[in-house]
């Protein structure tokens, strides 16, 4: 959706949404990635129905059982079924990833739009974003999560603080280009307020790069949640997030590697799906960034 397309009045009104969707569905990465993400999403939504056991149920009789026909992914040292824990883990990890995407999308857009549109605020805001980006994202998230205290909400806050600055930078870059285009001038000449111009004309046209970035933020959040849980500042146990299951299995890596292997594979499938989805979206929505 480029500015030229918006300005082009010589053709009959097109259906941009339908056209974009058609191009996305013809893109291999998007389709494969979408398929993987859809599967993980369905598993997360139906966790209560499809998990064979209660993910928190202790059963001393079946401790550290290797994968078999009953316990497909084996059991951990409490006799908890790893498959059920991974299925429920998908739910927690997707909730954390999704909430991070929402928060980062909201604040990143707000900060980036204000910086790009109201020029006197640009420098102070972006220098602050530069300062936040000077900390490695994972270290920043770890510190904030630990200082606030381990909980799902605090993990989401920590991940959002770590991912929002880069998102703000991307939104600002689009806004800077779009605000100089003729249709913005036209809207201003017609007497539209600055707020209306920003919301209805500028931001709408900056959506492409934002959506692409947020898809990658989702992937980053899933990976970071796992790392935070592994260190011990993620969602408090016994909640079965992907990272918690791996952290749990660490002490049994030698005798029961399946506790660690399977949630790791679940992370890879989820993140791979999101990355493929992001690549597809980028090629179609934001061709300048084509890799």
């Amino acid at each position: 959706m480029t500015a030229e397309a918006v300005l082009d009045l010589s053709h009959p009104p097109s259906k941009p949404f339908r056209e974009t969707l058609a191009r996305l569905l013809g893109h291999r990465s998007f389709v494969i990635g979408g398929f993987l993400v859809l599967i993980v999403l369905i598993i997360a939504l139906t966790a209560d129905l499809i998990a064979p056991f209660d993910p928190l149920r202790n059963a001393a009789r079946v401790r550290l059982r290797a994968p078999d026909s009953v316990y497909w992914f084996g059991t951990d040292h409490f006799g908890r079924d790893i498959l059920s824990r991974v299925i429920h883990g998908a739910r927690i990890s997707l909730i954390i990833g999704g909430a991070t995407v929402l928060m980062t999308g909201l604040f990143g857009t707000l900060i980036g739009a204000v910086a790009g549109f109201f020029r006197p605020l640009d420098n102070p805001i972006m220098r602050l974003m530069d300062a936040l980006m000077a900390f490695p994202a994972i270290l920043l998230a770890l510190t904030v999560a630990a200082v606030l205290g381990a909980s799902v909400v605090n993990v989401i806050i920590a991940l959002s603080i770590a991912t929002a600055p880069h998102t703000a930078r991307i939104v600002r870059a689009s806004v800077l280009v779009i605000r100089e285009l003729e249709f913005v001038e036209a809207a201003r000449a017609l007497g539209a307020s600055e707020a209306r111009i920003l919301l209805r004309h500028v931001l709408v046209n900056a959506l492409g790069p934002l959506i692409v970035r947020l898809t990658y933020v989702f992937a980053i959040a899933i990976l970071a949640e796992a790392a935070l849980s592994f260190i011990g500042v993620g969602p408090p146990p016994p909640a079965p997030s992907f990272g918690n299951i791996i952290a749990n299995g660490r002490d049994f890596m030698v005798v029961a590697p399946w506790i660690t292997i399977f949630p790791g594979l679940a992370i890879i499938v989820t993140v791979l799906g999101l990355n493929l989805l992001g690549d597809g979206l980028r090629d179609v929505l934001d061709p300048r960034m084509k890799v």
Partner: protein
Amino acid sequence: MLGFLTRRLAGAFLVLLLVSVLSFGIIWLVPGDPAAVFLDAGATPDQVERLRRELGLDKPLAMQVVEWYSRILKGDLGRSILLSRGVTEAIIERLPVTLSLAGISLVLSVVAGVAAGMVAATKHGQPVDQAVMAGALFGLSIPEFWLGLVLIVVFAVQLGVLPTGGFVPPTESITGWIRSITLPAIALAVVHMGFIARMTRAALLEVLSQDFIRTADSKGLTRLHILLRHGLPNALIPILTVTGIVAGSLLGGTVIIEQVFSIPGVGRLIIGAILSRDFPVIQGGLLFVALVYLTINLLVDICYAIVDPRVRLE
């Protein structure tokens, strides 16, 4: 060039100023009294009060900030509550460990990533390209710490060819050092290799589609010559950018990987401090890591200016 340097340094200084406020300010995020949080519920009010005074939390906020700045300008990052020693010394002591790990991973990921990206770009659209890109994307999707655990089980436990963790300084034994750093360096490098491979391929494809490449081709130069003398130098800027990003990301990665492999580096120091709420080490460690990151980026920008004269004039 001088004008560029001055502007760039001034910008970096401003950001560093903000970074130092943020590093110090992390303590304001603590719900409640940081001294009480460190000591847990069992502490007497007396003990809490003493620690508050030691941390300078009894003074007004403005005073705390002034003291923090006067200290860090002298290179003093404060005293660790837990280790009861200077934060600066503790970091300096562990720095060579972290730098050697991050450095080797950086070299590994740049060499392998650029090579893979070049192969993919020259075989654009062919099965080799698709295989390399699929591999790169797969690498990007693996959690580093999980890969570390898997490597330990396979190479240290099952095959028994490498140690499960720990660190041997190169001054003690070169082979011991290489053996201790191989698995963590690989675990760290895989993700970044994928990232660099993707960026190198994109940058090269862009350059290889330009007219001067066609001219070189019609002059009858060999493909290898064109790639190395005309293609790669012109793709250097994006590759440099990515290397800067990767260097920063490796700093973050070492924090986690040091924990997996029990490597006594700066990352492990900071994690220990985070888990025990040792605030002076958290504040000092954050500031130090950010300083390293900003320095790397400054160096990358200066490299740009050397490689591409247009950058100096912007």
